[in-house]
């Protein structure tokens, strides 16, 4: 009964800090060159210290790994490189003992072409699994659905010579889409969910969730049938598995994404994709307008739901949810080397995207942490790890975690040549310059700053639960807003510019209150009726708690 480690808290995810882990790249517990669950267990103390509330695991299932494990060949087995189901159970238990929850990626939309279901379906069209995938005699249907992996795929249909028919795939051609019109498929996927929930997992990040159904004359995204099925999944969870969470990956505009919350009866969380590129855009342009605009365009969500917010993740920095013009700007500014582009995005880690600028990294985290939602950190970004754009696909941002300055970055005791990927060795981001051990011992390091900053955010539930009230000033280089929850009022002011800035904020509503800076607890002059003047260092920010004068 792993839930016993926690107090019941159905809304835990609303004030949690998430941390995304690529198991293969985190720590090698059995010296074979690849990260695994034994290794992950070894590093739980570190994650607990960092302040992580919930670990999000990239896919861990058996897979031929032609798409980083998002091509699942058996939903009920752990990939042998990572360990066994028992190792997984032990990991979840150990994480729970340290007060951390665990969610894992689950791909419902498709399987690997190696999955026995698909092999059966193609070889026995009239058999029990003949209808489990989307088959067609022609490649004409559903022509309005866009192709997502533009760089590799020419069509969403691929001909299977064995069955003599085309099969549907929204992603790679080795990832056939399951046919959710078949009730057996719906039930089979519920069984997958139950299996892992019974093992104690705290939820799922549902990969590629908008594409479950296909309908002629539509783009095949966000269809009503998809929402209906997700509501069924949610009802199952609510009835049998309290305190678990469904996190939707729907790379869509906010007005479409909110549909995934339903009326609080669908997904608990969904990623807010469009806000992320706009943070980078605002920083480069020194203009808060794109951020204010996308947040304005974000509809309200049910009280029991939450946005997932991130700066970077295991995929490319996706530019699907921006205009063509904005995309060109982003490429121009952040992907000068064409190798850095992938599909509609930029495959780089946070630190290199920001040219390694410490002020910029801190500022971006401050903005991220100040927004309404739960932040999701990507492993290695807390120490400012770099990337390797010369590696294929998204491997460049999935190199081994840099634990120490020792051999193999302290990631593995295997031979150098045996590692799944070699750790970074360049003079700026290489493991001798950037590693956990050194940063733990250096009080001014990025890691130590992150630790304090995570603790600060967690001290104030207002960041997870409070309102968001934009505070637009005449100086557009300033991104300022108020967060409010019960008695707690927080004012966040961020300077996007490379130069020092002054800003006058209309705080008359709070006249008489005293802003107390939250990191150093310094009291600032009381707010009066006149505009409140603040000066900020280049890329600087202030978070204030507004306090009643008498306290």
């Amino acid at each position, binding site marked *: 009964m792993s839930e016993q480690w926690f107090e*019941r808290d159905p809304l835990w995810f609303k004030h949690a800090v998430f941390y995304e882990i690529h198991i293969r790249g985190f720590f090698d517990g059995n010296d074979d060159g690849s990260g695994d669950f034994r290794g992950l267990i070894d590093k739980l103390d570190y994650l607990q210290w960092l302040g992580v509330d919930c670990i999000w695991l990239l896919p861990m299932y058996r897979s031929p790994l032609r798409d980083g494990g998002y091509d699942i060949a058996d939903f009920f087995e752990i990939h042998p490189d990572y360990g066994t189901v028992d190792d997984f159970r032990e990991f979840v238990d150990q994480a729970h003992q340290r007060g951390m929850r665990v969610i894992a990626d689950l791909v419902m939309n498709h399987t690997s072409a190696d999955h026995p279901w698909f092999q059966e379906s193609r070889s026995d069209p009239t058999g029990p699994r003949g209808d489990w995938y989307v088959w067609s005699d022609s490649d004409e249907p559903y022509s309005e659905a866009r192709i997502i992996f533009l760089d590799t795929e020419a069509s969403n249909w691929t001909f299977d010579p064995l069955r003599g028919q085309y099969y549907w795939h929204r992603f790679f051609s080795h990832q056939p889409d399951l046919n959710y019109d078949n009730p057996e498929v719906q039930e089979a996927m519920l069984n997958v969910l139950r299996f892992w929930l019974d093992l104690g997992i705290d939820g799922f990040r549902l990969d590629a969730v908008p594409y479950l159904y296909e309908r002629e004359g539509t783009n095949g995204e966000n269809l009503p049938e998809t929402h209906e099925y997700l509501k069924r999944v949610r009802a199952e969870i609510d009835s049998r598995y309290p305190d678990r969470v469904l996190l939707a990956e729907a790379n869509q505009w906010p007005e479409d994404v909110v549909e995934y919350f339903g009326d609080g009866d669908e997904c608990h969380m969904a990623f807010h994709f469009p806000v992320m590129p706009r943070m980078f855009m605002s920083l480069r342009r020194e203009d808060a307008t794109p951020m204010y605009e996308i947040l304005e365009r974000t509809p309200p969500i049910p009280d029991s739901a939450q946005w997932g917010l991130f700066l970077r993740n295991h995929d490319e920095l996706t530019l699907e949810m921006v205009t063509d013009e904005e995309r060109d700007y982003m490429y121009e500014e952040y992907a000068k080397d064409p190798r850095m582009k992938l599909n509609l995005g930029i495959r780089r880690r946070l630190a290199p995207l920001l040219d390694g600028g410490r002020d910029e990294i801190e500022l971006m985290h401050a903005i991220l942490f100040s927004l309404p939602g739960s932040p999701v950190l990507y492993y290695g970004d807390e120490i400012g790890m770099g990337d390797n754009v010369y590696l294929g696909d998204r491997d460049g941002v999935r190199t081994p975690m840099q634990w*120490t300055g020792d051999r193999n970055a302290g990631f593995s005791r295997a031979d150098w040549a045996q590692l799944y990927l070699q750790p970074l060795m360049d003079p700026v981001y290489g493991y001798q310059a950037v590693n956990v051990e050194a940063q733990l011992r250096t*009080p001014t390091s990025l890691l130590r700053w992150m*630790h304090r900053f995570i603790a600060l955010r967690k001290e104030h539930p207002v960041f997870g639960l409070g309102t968001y009230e934009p505070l637009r000033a005449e100086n557009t280089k300033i991104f300022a807003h108020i967060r409010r929850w019960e008695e707690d009022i927080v004012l966040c002011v961020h300077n996007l510019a490379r130069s020092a800035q002054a800003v006058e904020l209309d705080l008359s509503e709070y006249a008489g209150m005293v802003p107390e800076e939250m990191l150093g*607890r310094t009291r600032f002059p009381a707010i009066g009726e006149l505009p409140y003047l603040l000066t900020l260092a280049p890329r600087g920010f202030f978070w204030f708690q507004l306090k009643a004068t008498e306290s």
Partner: protein
Amino acid sequence: MAFDEQSVIDFVTRQRWYGAKSRAVAHSEVLESVELRTTEPRFTLELVELRYETGAHDIYQLVHGEEEIDGLDDPAAARELVHAMRSGLTLQGSEGSVEFRRVEGFAGLGRELAEARSVGAEQSNTSLVFDDELILKVFRRLEPGINPELEMLRFLTEHGFANIAALGGWYAYSGGPMSATLGILQQYVSDGLDGWELALQEIADDPEQFLTRLRRLGEVTGEMHTILGSDLSDPCFCPETPSVESLGLLTATVDEEIESVFLALPEDDDRLEPILGRGEEVREQLRLLTHSGSIGKAIRTHGDYHLGQTLFSDGDWVILDFEGEPARAVVDRRRKRSPLRDVAGMLRSFAYAAIAAELERSTPAPEGWEEQAREQFLEGYLDTVDTSLLPSGGIAIDRLLAVFELEKAVYELRYELDNRPEWVRIPVAGIQRLIEQAATI
């Protein structure tokens, strides 16, 4: 008999052992009910869930009497629990069962219990003493899993550690709502003198005598750690090698604590003068102490070790209270840690005793007493402890010990500033000592 929901809530929330004073209770529910005694006077053991408005919940143990919501004040009810242990009963409930167990060969169970009195109600339990020979501790707010005190006492008993109050029995629930230890029965050391009291007394009367006793306490502590780290076959006790960054994590944690405590130090307090403005110096010392070196092995430890957790009885020490720090969650208290954490806790309590003798008994400890106390204790400790559990080499031991002492002293400083200003000089002296001494190790 059944009690209505509101009167149960009213009763529980009034008790000292009620742990969630600031929370609004939404409702309560009886999760399990087990008949403890079916003839008059009837007693029923109940697990009651209090659900708070936030959605969180706690489970409490109550022993209903005929008329009372909780009848544990009645010696008859407490006696009933001991009888059940003696007979090794298993009582079925609707969702699970309560198992009562006795320790074979425990003499105290063989006789009738006459007198019972309740002793100082603590935060999370109710304790009763029978005939000055047995003590029954009934846990109120239940936490899942085995209680660390029971687990430690059983392990130490089975592995032949003699310096504890012998374990007589226990009872535990396992079933749908949770599995948890409900109560423990132990020998009551009636003629024991509390180690803290003894220290204050002998610092005044016979400081030399107490130093020899401390050497013995060091030996007992070393034996305790050796035994706690001796069983490779028990995963709950098997010594572990901490991960490579454990020293770094410890350093970072202590460093941030120092930074934040010094940031908030009042500037107008004379008692703080020796350390005022020296926060950066303290942090620098910490860096020197942790610059290199290892952390040794992690084992199960006492967890909250100081003179107040010992008794001196019949010429030897008895170690008490293996619960760990009450403020921490059970899982956290069961975590393995360096045994030097316990040692540091004890050394800090010598510093407290030296000054308390002056503050409370008006007899200052002789010059250099604390230093000698430390030496005696450490000599005894290092004589008996399995040194493979410690960092290798005397210097590495001294350094890690200094880090743990610093951690404790900084915690004490924060605590005393908030709670007992007249005691502030103790952690101040401790920190000052560590600044000056650290440079030499």
